[in-house]
């Protein structure tokens, strides 16, 4: 009797903790899933203003403008382009013509406000999402990745 009841207590405690965890997971999943979109995806299916997502593509050649620590550039998949502004220090490997992933949201003027810009960690590396979206856009040139 007591043995069974005690075991029941532990099982109940375990279920309670798991239940709380499941509730936490479900509520926070809603806000913290960050989708990846290429410029072509956005042209096809726009994302509402203010919604957080990741934008990936190549930094368009000749598009980078700098004013102090505020940068403006365009991200392209060689079909569509999206204007981006970013305040901060850009990562070391941020270059024109190279792959980039920016996290942020659109403002009401259709400009992507990046809160975080990720570039590659080394020279020979292309973020896989960017490589795939370039392939989808029919613009993938493996030999041109440098």
């Amino acid at each position, binding site marked *: 009797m*007591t043995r069974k009841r005690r075991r029941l207590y532990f099982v109940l405690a375990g279920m309670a903790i798991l239940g709380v965890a499941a509730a936490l997971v479900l509520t926070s999943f809603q806000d913290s899933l*960050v*989708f990846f979109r290429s410029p072509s995806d956005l042209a096809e299916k726009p994302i509402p203003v203010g919604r957080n997502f990741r934008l990936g593509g190549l930094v368009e050649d000749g598009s980078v403008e700098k004013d102090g620590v505020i940068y403006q550039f365009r991200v392209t998949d060689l079909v569509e382009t999206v204007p981006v502004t970013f305040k901060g220090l850009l990562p*070391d490997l941020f270059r024109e013509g190279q792959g980039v992933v920016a996290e942020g949201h659109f403002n009401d003027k259709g400009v992507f406000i990046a809160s975080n810009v990720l570039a590659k*960690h*080394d020279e020979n590396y292309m973020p896989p999402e960017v490589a795939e979206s370039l392939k989808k856009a029919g613009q993938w040139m493996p030999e041109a990745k440098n």
Partner: protein
Amino acid sequence: MVAEIGQFVLILALVTACFQGVLPLIGAARGNAPLMHFADNAAFVQFVAISGAFACLTIGYVTSDFSILNVASNSHSLKPMLYKVSGVWGNHEGSLLLWGWILALFGFAVALFGRNLPDSLKARVLAIQGLIGVGFLMFVLFTSNPFERLDPAPLDGSGLNPLLQDPGLAFHPPFLYLGYVGLSVTFSFAIAALIEGRVDPAWARWVRPWTLAAWGFLTIGIALGSWWAYYELGWGGWWFWDPVENASFMPWLAATALLHSAIVVEKRDALKNWTILLAIIAFSFSLLGTFLVRSGVLTSVHAFASDPARGVFILIFLIVVIGGSLLLYGIRAPMMKGGGLFAPISREGALVLNNLLLSTAAATVLLGTLYPIFLDAFTGAKVSVGPPYFVSTFLPLVVPLIIAMAFGPFLPWKRGDLTGVLTRLKFALAAALLFAGVVWWWQSNAPVMALVGMGLFAWLLVGTILEWAERIKLFRGPLTSSWKRLVQLPRSSHGMTMAHIGIALVVLGITASEAWQTEHLGVMKPGEQISVGGYDFQFEGAENVAGPNYEALRGTFIASTGGGKGILMYPEQRRYTNPPMETTEAAIRPMLTADLYVVIGDADGKGGYATRIYHKPFISWIWIGAFVMFAGGALSLSDRRLRLGAPKRARSPGAKEKALTGAKG
């Protein structure tokens, strides 16, 4: 020549591992002593062979032998010697060889220190280690051979990623691997116990030191990794909930849970099945971590290679190891007899709560880490799970864990008394409220979580010290008798106190640096001064300087608090030549009360430079705390009762008659 020798001994190691994985199992099943003892010799031969292979590759790196493909693509003749050596494991093939070498090292250590293990158990443990070795060595030889030749040999190598040329990162992988692979020993013990169909307190005593060692190495490995991210990446962050970080954090959570549940098996002969399952899960997390990091599934600096053949091999290996061991568990676990029954309010009850919270936390981290991979595989949608998810699921599980951490050690085994513990903890509660109150008075606009964090820090610190003081009866009698108790108290008990204090310090560092960090971002011209976090930062100017294999733009800043001498700080932006790459070298002044952190960026063309300055209060305590935890683990490990292989089955107080009959082997 050196590469061929390396290749040969590696094949020799594989052949040895095959025999080590089969013969001792047959020997243990038939009670054949020579076959069982063969395991010891095989473990020794395997260790020597892989050491030889590792030495060969190291010679290749040190002498810059660019006829070896691996050396040519990852090293350079002008690289400093430390990074030539650390370059051995700074790449996919070499790091796997290191993994295999550490696996063999642990196997050899079990053979060496396990003198008083029963023959059959030891033979089975070593056989399982051998089988894991077969899998890894096959992976190395067939998909990731570090000794592949390159013909013609290039004049010079293409160099190591400069981000990896760093003392913190030189030692981060070996420590992490010592932790990952250390868990293979507990895994082997668990599988051996399942085959034998028996777990007893003595088993837990043999397993605990290995878990403790693996846990300590994991702690240091993770701390080194986050320290590296903090000062090398130049973003000022130290933990990003990046999948690769999670991959090392999940085994740590599981190992921490295992460490605590093994105590219950040892002292109360209960929670056996759960402990076995945890041992399997912990090593599965290690393998999963290796898979996630090495297969190129994830976007990160760690993803050296993205060769599909390797990914498939590791996936099959994972399925065989995890699936096989869980299947064995499913068949054999119901046969294990559950031990004592126990009350919810007791030491073992508190340890169960610890395990519930830790494993739930590990599960939520696992879900957040794998969800993007599954979603991609099934729907093709690319998502990432951001830090908000981890913060909002992990924190609510950790807060009760820390509250319970102060209670647990006060509770006696079998039956505790909650009100009694509460009265003894009243000072801790008072300290927590007082400390949170003082912080609130001083920083009235502080976020609630910051006050909670500071309160938890004081609660855990004071609660842990109170428990320690009670153990040695401090101020309850003459100091000399307290001293006597202090000396006589087992070292593992002091180790527990230290590790818990370490957690309290980590809580302090995380809370204070997250809540009260101040930051300045903007263009600064030479001579300009700016105030951040109570310090005045004077920008003196920037100049170009040359390093051994890079050129750099170096800024000079003087930080001062008004009076006294200023602190000189030199942030750099480096351009490495081989491979061509830029890195940011933040200038960091670590102090006990705060870190000053200065980054210099591009010139704006008008004489100014983009700069970022942080003032991060108490952030050093995160790593100090991690080191204190490690030291606590090391102190525990030096306990006479826990020394590797020291415990004897016959001596253990909880051992029953059947255990004694099993000890003759």
